[in-house]
């Protein structure tokens, strides 16, 4: 991190399309903070930006693809992971990051999420979880905790919510962590760490949505939510993921829950095909058009 100590401009500036600033995210929204941490993780991990691609879906977090000065693509709703899978398979040397929201990844893209984790495709998924469908007006999402008031549940939501770390761990992810937008340093370190892992890495970031979630539930503004994260979050590395479910005002368990090794999709494919095809198998990396 010593690179920018004597710099005269904002260290994250070179990762951003500054001509598109100010961005559309509301005052108090945490998505900008996560992008900030992501940019600092890129500085820290000294990753080659030419070998990095960022894919995002639809929603508030989906806008990240338009604000970062990287090779990025803003896909259709829920299809960030399928697009990223294709990108990774066609060009295995790329580091592919999927940066999307909870609604995009776990609702319409839920099937893709669990199957990408099952196949253990080498993708780094950053899921910004604001507990609601924010861009479309605050409808109940699969991650909305019980009793929360949303525009489609004016008397309180009664659906059981998804516990995303538990879901992706059960499906087979090799790296699962959760942080909130309050834990900026830990989040940046976690993102830098997931780049070192081979396989499906999943980082959930709990973020405030002051305009729709916090306002309807009378939980204050973005700053009040950050204070709540500071007060109520507990770092428990390696916590069993079935115990880390979220409630509306309860404790938030954060930390690195899973860090294990499994052969990734391309390794498995190469092993199986060279076993059954022998010399007829041509390495896919050699066929890549650059």
């Amino acid at each position: 991190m010593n690179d920018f100590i004597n710099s005269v401009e904002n260290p994250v500036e070179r990762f951003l399309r500054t001509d598109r600033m100010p961005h559309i995210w509301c005052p108090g929204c945490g998505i900008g903070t996560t992008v900030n941490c992501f940019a600092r993780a890129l500085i820290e991990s000294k990753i080659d930006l030419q070998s990095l691609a960022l894919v995002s879906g639809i929603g508030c977090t989906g806008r990240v693809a338009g604000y970062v000065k990287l090779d990025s693509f803003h896909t259709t709703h829920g299809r960030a992971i399928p697009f990223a899978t294709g990108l990774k398979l066609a060009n295995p040397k790329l580091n592919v990051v999927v940066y999307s929201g909870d609604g995009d990844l776990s609702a319409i893209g839920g099937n893709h999420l669990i199957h990408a984790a099952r196949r253990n495709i080498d993708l780094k998924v950053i899921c910004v979880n604001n507990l609601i469908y924010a861009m479309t007006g605050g409808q109940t999402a699969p991650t909305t905790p019980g009793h929360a008031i949303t525009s489609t549940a004016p008397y309180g939501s009664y659906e059981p919510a998804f516990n995303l770390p538990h879901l992706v761990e059960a499906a087979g992810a090799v790296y699962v962590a959760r942080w909130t937008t309050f834990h900026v340093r830990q989040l940046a370190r976690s993102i830098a760490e997931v780049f070192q892992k081979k396989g499906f890495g999943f980082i959930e970031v709990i973020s405030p949505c002051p305009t729709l979630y916090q306002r309807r539930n009378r939980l204050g503004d973005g700053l009040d939510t950050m204070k709540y994260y500071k007060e109520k979050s507990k770092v428990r590395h390696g916590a069993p993921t079935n115990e880390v479910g979220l409630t509306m005002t309860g404790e938030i368990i954060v930390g690195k829950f899973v860090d294990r090794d499994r052969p990734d999709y391309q390794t498995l494919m190469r092993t199986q095909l060279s076993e059954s095809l022998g010399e007829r198998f041509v390495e896919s990396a050699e066929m890549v058009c650059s």
Partner: protein
Amino acid sequence: MGVPVAKGRVSIIVERCKSCGFCVEFCPTKVLALSSAFNSKGYHPPHVVEPEKCSGCDLCGMYCPDFAIYATKIAPPKEAARES
């Protein structure tokens, strides 16, 4: 001579600020406060109230969702003199 304390300087890009107050709240040495002045979008950007307290840790820069603030470390005067 005591232990030299790290010194820093805060830079604020006023026009990007949306006055969420994250930097003011989470600054470890409480260098900042929201000002009463407006930027062109009608938000109150932060201003530096205690510049000598800044350690240049750049935590304000990490928290800022709008990339509107950052802190840089200033080399201690003794070292700076030796360098020049």
